[in-house]
């Protein structure tokens, strides 16, 4: 029998038909929408006079542009308010499940999907947001789409896709103390580069991933897009099933047993072929941080910023432009650089485990005077747990400002912007120019590193505090 990868198995099961010399008609099990990339899709549907084919397969939440204070009041920013109101209108009109501001399961779309048990192994999941790859942690094919495709999914539950190539990234061994899943993925991207997996879908394999919690796996899959990959996935196992069991939309009773039996078979066959393979040793990974303006520009905190030696032409120009934007010089140490802001949040690291890690670290300590510390839970559920577990109090005592759920300073569409020229060490996923506000300088790192930076006020290896 033909040997198949996990990715092949899920993909092939969702092809409605193949267009000769063209893409596949690809069926989508679950579709998430938010306020920013959906309004034009609905508008176009209306222009065509077409309705939503399977409203029960779409779930909505406003997350990208929402304020993270006073969520019970009317949104002040007129344009943001219009987008959120449009989302409400459209959900009502087409009977789409909406987790609105202030309700129990409001939050960042990639945080609430798993929390509600909507995300399940073997599914195909899309959303008009590139970090949809997050859901791959459950052994699902999940990826971001554009607004035209959002429209297609609403109208037909399908999109036209050519099957990507397959890559496997294996990391074996034990992670050192103070090393988190964020460090694994920043390490991988620094090796493969920000474009190194373009055209591929990644499977993460090996004991380093097997030993991670679901939250930590989500962090890894989340950032697949940052090396150019369409998405990344991890085969489901007992950890996956334990996480899902009892969740609101997870199968129950006999249906659960049947589902687990099916999910257990979702593994890459031995001998299945990947177009590209990488192998890394977990022991080589240490706390990481980025120094430039794409996520591939990462180093170990203890290392020096690379020099432009050996680079030529436009490569060299881009590298120097990037350092210039960051205000760093080639070859200097990153450790000890003074920082202005820390941000804990986003769909990369805004889950309860991340908040716990930060709270444990700063317990009984105070943030440094030069630091403004924002912590934005990924969802209401995370907020609630953090409060029940006493983490909110610990964080507030340490001088963190706790805000309400949303994307917040991850993309700075709302008021949570890092001022021009200021340095922010952030648990989010993109350090692009201006991502966290015009002129803002972002350094990506793990929640643990961010906690260490908050306490010392400068770039710090969390193992040294």
């Amino acid at each position, binding site marked *: 029998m033909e040997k198949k990868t996990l990715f092949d198995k899920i993909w092939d099961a969702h092809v*409605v*038909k193949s*267009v*000769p*010399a*063209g*893409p596949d*008609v690809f*069926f989508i099990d679950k579709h998430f929408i938010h306020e*920013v*990339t959906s*309004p034009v899709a609905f*508008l*176009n549907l209306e*222009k*065509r006079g*077409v309705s939503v*084919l399977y409203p029960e397969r779409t779930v909505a939440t406003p997350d*990208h*542009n929402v304020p993270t204070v006073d969520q019970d009041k009317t949104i002040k*920013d007129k*344009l*943001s308010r219009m987008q959120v109101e*449009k989302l409400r209108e459209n959900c009502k009109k087409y009977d789409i499940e909406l987790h609105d501001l202030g309700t129990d399961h409001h939050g960042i779309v990639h945080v609430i999907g798993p929390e509600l048990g909507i995300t399940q192994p073997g599914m195909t999941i899309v959303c*008009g947001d*590139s970090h949809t790859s997050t859901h791959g942690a459950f052994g699902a094919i999940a990826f*971001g*789409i*554009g*607004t*035209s*495709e959002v429209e*297609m999914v609403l*109208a*037909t*539950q*399908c*999109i*036209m896709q050519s099957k*990507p190539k397959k890559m496997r990234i294996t990391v074996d061994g034990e992670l050192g103390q103070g090393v988190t899943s964020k460090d694994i993925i920043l390490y991988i991207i620094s090796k493969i580069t*920000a*474009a190194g997996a*373009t055209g591929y879908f990644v499977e993460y394999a090996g004991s380093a991933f097997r030993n991670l919690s679901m939250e930590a796996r989500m962090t890894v899959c989340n950032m697949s897009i940052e090396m*150019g990959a*369409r998405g990344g996935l991890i085969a489901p196992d007992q950890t996956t099933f334990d996480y899902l069991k009892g969740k609101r939309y997870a199968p129950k009773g006999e249906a659960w047993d049947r589902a687990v039996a099916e999910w257990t078979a979702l593994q890459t066959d031995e001998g299945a072929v990947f177009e590209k393979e990488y192998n890394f040793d977990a022991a080589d990974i240490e706390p990481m941080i980025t120094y430039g303006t*794409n996520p591939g520009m990462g180093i170990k905190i203890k290392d020096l910023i690379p020099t432009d030696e050996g680079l030529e032409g*436009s*490569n060299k*120009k*881009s590298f120097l*432009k990037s350092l210039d934007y960051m205000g760093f010089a080639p070859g200097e140490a990153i450790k000890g650089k003074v920082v202005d802001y820390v941000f804990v949040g986003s769909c990369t690291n805004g889950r309860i485990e991340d908040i716990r890690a930060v709270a444990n670290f700063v317990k009984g300590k105070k943030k440094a005077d030069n630091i403004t510390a924002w912590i934005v839970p990924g969802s209401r559920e995370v907020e609630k747990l953090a409060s029940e577990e006493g983490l909110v109090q610990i964080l507030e005592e340490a001088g963190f400002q706790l805000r309400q759920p949303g994307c917040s300073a991850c*993309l*700075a*569409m709302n008021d949570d912007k890092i001022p021009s020229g200021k340095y922010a060490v952030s648990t989010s996923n*993109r350090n*692009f*120019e*201006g*991502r966290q506000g015009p*002129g803002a300088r972002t350094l990506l790192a793990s929640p643990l590193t961010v906690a260490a930076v908050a306490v010392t006020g400068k770039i710090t290896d969390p193992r040294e505090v």
Partner: protein
Amino acid sequence: MAYDKFNVLTSTVVPLPAENVDTDQIIPARFLKATEREGFGDNLFRDWRYDVEGNPKKDFVLNDSTYNGKILLAGKNFGSGSSREHAVWALYDYGFRCVVSSFFADIFKNNCLNIGVLPVTISPEFAEVLFEAVESDPKTEIEVDIDKQTITLLSSGQSESFDINAYKKQNMKNGFDDIDYLLNIKSDITEFAKSR
């Protein structure tokens, strides 16, 4: 949404050699707040084009009247990052119908094809040739022929062929989008959905 048909495009070129241009640069998030598709061109490359006070930055290519045209010649790994289709709407709205690069990010490329901006992938060597030609003579014209799948530097006749799958090519030539196709096979889809 239907768009203009694409056949042969002959145009001068706007060069943007920067690498790894992500969609946050093409259109920053704070300009994504519209609920309609029009008008994004005004904020295309906003933070490279204007300073914080909103004054045009002289050294940016879109503010340099020497260069204009319907073809954007971009550096490698163009369109990485966020899946926002607004990035392509902004390019289209500004007047670009074709983006040429030695390497595109996946989602961006898909988005381009879905709304009628042709992404043309060329070799790094040919990209160098084109950048040099355009920089030494801003009036240089390039011809992109979708039927023949060729891109030609008219001044020297140097040419390269590019890939596009047959299905997408037909769409671009006719100004169709995927949704027309999908709506036509709806019964196949609903039949398939019964098993899911």
